[in-house]
């Protein structure tokens, strides 16, 4: 087991395209680190540079205190689970798991049998050891790939979107399984995904990438509550954060449906008349009629017409279209495109109590928790309301948790 340090890592292709741009990232011993971002953000390239399947153009890759830039993958002592599992179709499950051990002539046959058995026990693969990968279900294949990864004592586990080929239900189960396995073995893990549920639930920390640049590295909670910029704010959370045009007018801020005070933390950073983008998560809205009276005073209320509602049993979403000027619309469309989505119209998506009886096409009264609102600079995308003190608190909490776990 080992820590992984990346210093100013760059990957430049022959045509000058930089897939990874000056990324520095420290992954602590035993930590579960997630690399996340939309397609083409460089997350897989970065992972492949750690494992050695991709050459590093410049920068240092240090694993366990040793620079490994020029080392072949086999000399780095890492194991990897591939997106398509890369099981050897001509070998049985047993031989697939034993494969890395067989390459090392020093490991005795008894030792191989014992260790494969151990891995198979942990992954409940014992009944399948004599079968070929072609005869296994998707979930079983996935487990065999993990078995091959854990059969050796490695410095770190690397996962490249390991669950993306499974159906939703199985994905949930395997997610728990991976988490449990990592906690049990305590091995440093780097996990690439574009699925934010995986990112939020699995990782100690999450590194968000965008076009080869590192945006923010933080615990899931910090990413969610204190994003550094609009990109991170928009990427984390589902349904995504709502972005609305907001115009500063003295001490007040004018939004499409409502007017609120400029948050104290951002007061120094804005000028009168400036156009900003306000970000409010869907769950920070509510149908005013089903709201606790105690909460009402902590936010603002407004009236708006509901376009469409989606009732999901345990939750309910309402869609409220709004007008935005061309500049903001374009900016939001760009952001949506970058996040692998498509912004068809400017609309609010709000989460309301499942009990609410709001009807489509009718007007309703809504409440918004303005304390949780973020303000972004439309040019740079920078979050003007990020609370550094709160973020530091969250970070130290996370560190403590990791220390506690690895000490055990």
């Amino acid at each position, binding site marked *: 087991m080992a820590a992984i340090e990346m210093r100013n890592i760059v990957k430049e292709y022959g045509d000058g395209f930089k897939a990874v741009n000056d990324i520095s990232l420290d992954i602590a011993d035993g930590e579960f680190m997630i690399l996340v971002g939309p397609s083409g953000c460089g997350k897989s390239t970065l992972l492949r540079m750690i*494992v*050695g*399947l991709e050459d590093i153009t410049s920068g240092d890759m240090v694993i366990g205190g040793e620079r490994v830039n020029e080392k*072949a*993958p*086999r000399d780095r*002592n*890492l*194991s*990897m689970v*591939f*997106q*398509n599992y*890369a099981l*050897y*179709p*001509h070998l049985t499950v047993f031989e697939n798991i034993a*494969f*890395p051990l067989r*390459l*090392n002539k020093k490991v005795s046959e008894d030792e191989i049998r014992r260790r494969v058995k151990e891995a198979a026990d942990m992954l409940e693969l014992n009944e399948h050891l004599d079968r070929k990968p072609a005869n296994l279900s998707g979930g079983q294949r996935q487990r065999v790939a993990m078995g*091959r990864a854990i059969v*050796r004592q490695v410095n770190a586990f*690397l996962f490249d979107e390991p669950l993306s080929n499974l159906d939703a239900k199985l994905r949930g189960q395997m997610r728990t399984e991976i988490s449990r396995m990592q906690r049990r073995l305590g091995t440093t893990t780097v996990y690439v995904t574009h699925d934010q549920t995986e990112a939020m639930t699995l990782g100690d920390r999450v590194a968000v990438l965008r076009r080869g640049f590192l945006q923010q590295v933080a615990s899931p909670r910090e990413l969610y509550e204190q994003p550094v910029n609009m990109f991170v704010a928009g990427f984390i959370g589902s349904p995504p954060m709502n972005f609305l045009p907001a115009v500063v007018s003295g001490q007040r801020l004018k939004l499409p449906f409502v007017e609120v005070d400029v948050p104290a933390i951002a007061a120094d950073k804005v000028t009168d008349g400036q156009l900003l983008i306000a970000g409010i998560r869907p769950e920070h809205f509510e149908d005013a009629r089903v709201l606790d009276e105690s909460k009402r005073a902590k936010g603002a209320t407004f009236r708006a017409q509901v376009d469409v509602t989606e009732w999901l049993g345990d939750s309910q979403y309402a869609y409220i279209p709004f007008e935005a000027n061309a500049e903001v619309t374009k900016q939001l469309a760009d952001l949506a495109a970058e996040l692998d989505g498509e912004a068809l119209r400017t609309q609010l998506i709000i989460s309301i109590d499942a009990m609410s009886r709001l009807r489509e096409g009718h007007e309703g009264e809504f409440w918004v928790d303005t304390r949780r609102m973020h303000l972004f600079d439309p040019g740079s995308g920078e979050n003007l309301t990020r609370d550094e003190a709160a973020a530091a608190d969250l970070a130290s909490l996370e560190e403590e948790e990791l220390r506690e776990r690895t000490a055990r």
Partner: protein
Amino acid sequence: MKVSRRTQAYWIVGAVLIIAYAIIPVIWIISLSFKEGDDITNNAFLPTVWSWENYKTVFASDLFTSALRNSVGMSLIATTISVILATLAAYAISRLEFPGKRLVLGVALAITVFPVIAIATPLFDLWRNVGLYDTWLGLIIPYLSYSLPLSVYVLAAFFREIPWEMEQAAQVDGATAWQAFRRVIVPLASPGVFTAAILTFFAVWNDFVFGITLTSSEAARPVPAALAFFQGASQFSQPTAPIAAAAVVVTIPVVILVLLFQRKIVAGLTNGAVKG
């Protein structure tokens, strides 16, 4: 697609016609090979009496038996070496990054394009000077260089179908590039190697140009060339029926391979062409 009974009937008629198209000339040469005496010139499709006489004649002739021995021996040797070399080269071309890769492909392409006859004549001079004229080695070498491009293309197409991740996984698991090739790729590619071997065998077995230009005696002359030099009792009567018998004999290996491995041959031919 949903197909009506009637349409399906049309397709069956088509299929039967195609089978007839392919088989009739073969049946004709077989039937000719069983003709004897006046039957040979009776201009009928089938013999009146079926006779093994012609087969006895050709197997009694040294010219044919030695040619058969030459053909079988040289084809097997050339095929084996060609496929081994092509497997290694195709792997390197489809998977590894090394300078000069384009050169290898370019040379392979040039050979497939260059007319065999244009090589055969200069080789004729060269072989006479170095003593390879009319020897097995003198034919095996050009067979190799002419069959290599084909086997390289077919095999490269097969290698490309093996997911990249297989070798990468092996590398991460601690395998050297050679171990990854030996333990993961070769077992996965073996059906492809086998197909390439069959196609190579067909190509070499079919050779005529090198056979007639680079040999002068029974020492190395393969069957197709020997057929052309078959002589009857007199200079002017071509021994038609014995030639037919000899032709049938050399077609037997082809038919056996086709019967056993039709599926693989089709896959090999089409893969290489579409993706190569």
